[in-house]
């Protein structure tokens, strides 16, 4: 498995039967491919639907249904549509069990930066600021470094998406959790040593491996 597959497969293990989950565009969405057959979840799309959906084919395409990334999808039977007010009431009101998002930077205080690189990149926060404040559990799924540069830092340098909002970080090297406000390394991916991870993780963290 490559780095992204390792991350997606590990994220999928966090889904519990019956969960209602919002997945960010890209790597977080890839986790859907690895959900165990015993687990049924409902997904939430911030632009206004819930349930399970598939990529549209030329035969099934409906111009009125795109996912949060703008791709045409088809909602499976049992799903439902709503407007953006309802969608964000669900998000802010604490009705999502979990959100999985990407990050530019995360730090040891649980701060997240993923919406802006001043002077360079200005995508905007979309629904991310609402999601990190509202979802019961905030998981960051990302590759451990960006072109060799660490992303799990002592302090974020980029504009924040949320302050003290991250619960868990899943990378191809391992898993970190915030336990009683402290960043803790709880899992190492097979073949990765404590020294390997230390070398690319400037943040301070405790180690309490679960296996």
């Amino acid at each position: 498995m490559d780095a992204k597959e390792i991350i997606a497969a590990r994220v999928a293990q966090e889904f519990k039967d019956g969960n209602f989950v919002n997945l960010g565009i890209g790597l977080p969405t890839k986790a859907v491919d690895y959900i165990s057959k015993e687990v049924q979840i409902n997904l939430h799309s911030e632009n206004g639907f819930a349930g399970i959906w598939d990529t549209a084919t030329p035969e099934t395409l409906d111009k009125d249904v795109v996912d949060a990334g703008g791709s045409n999808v088809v909602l499976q039977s049992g799903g439902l549509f709503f407007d953006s007010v309802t969608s964000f009431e669900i998000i802010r009101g604490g009705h999502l069990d979990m959100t999985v998002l990407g990050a530019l930077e995360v730090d040891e205080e649980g701060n997240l930066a993923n919406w802006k690189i001043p002077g360079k990149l200005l995508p905007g926060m979309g629904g991310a600021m609402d999601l990190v404040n509202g979802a019961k559990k905030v998981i960051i799924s990302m590759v451990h470094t960006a072109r060799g540069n660490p992303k799990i830092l002592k302090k974020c340098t980029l504009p924040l998406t949320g302050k003290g909002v991250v619960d868990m970080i899943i990378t191809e090297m391992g898993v970190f959790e915030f336990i009683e406000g402290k960043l803790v390394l709880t899992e190492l991916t097979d073949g990765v040593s404590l020294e390997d991870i230390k070398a690319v993780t400037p943040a301070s963290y405790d180690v309490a491996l679960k296996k």
Partner: protein
Amino acid sequence: MDKIISMDAVGAFLKDGMTISIGGFMGCGNAHHIIEEILKTDVKNLTLICTDTARDDYGIGKLIDDRRITKLLASHIGTNKETQRQVIEGFIDLELVPQGTLAERIRAAGAGLGGVLTQTGLGTEVQEGKEIVTIDGKDYILEKPIHIDLAFLKAYKADNAGNLIYNGATRNFNVPMAGAATITIAEVEEIVENGQLNPNFIHTPFVYINHIIKA
């Protein structure tokens, strides 16, 4: 009152410098035909409220390409490089608003509320210059309503009275924008006689809609 107008009547509602809004998400649920009609006029210097600017040369993106927008309130412009270029160049004055906050600020304008209190954006740039209100020991940002001069919606079906139903995921920002504007014009695919829509399944009540256009 006859609310049905023809597409070429849109131009008469537009004025330089006004605040318009267009519902939709990544072009899905944009009033595409009305956007084409706006481009036929010479209106400029518009303030635009929308959740995103779709893509270059698609949906709302066309108004950006044609440099009609000088102030923009949106939650996401990452899929439209031309928007980012015009912001960096200084042509567009951009206020990025968290998507849920944008929905609530628009809704507040239509609902007669003086604002909304939200924790979204606390501890970020979004909080800068805004009042913080503490309720039962928790901090919230006071976010003010966004009032709109002219809103353009896209629905699937209308009746003659202006009751609307939407298809699929197009309800998005079309629903809150109805009611937040002084004048609201809906582009629809089909117009039916009053009484032909099921009253149990109407998404936008007639009272918010001033004009409907079949396109």
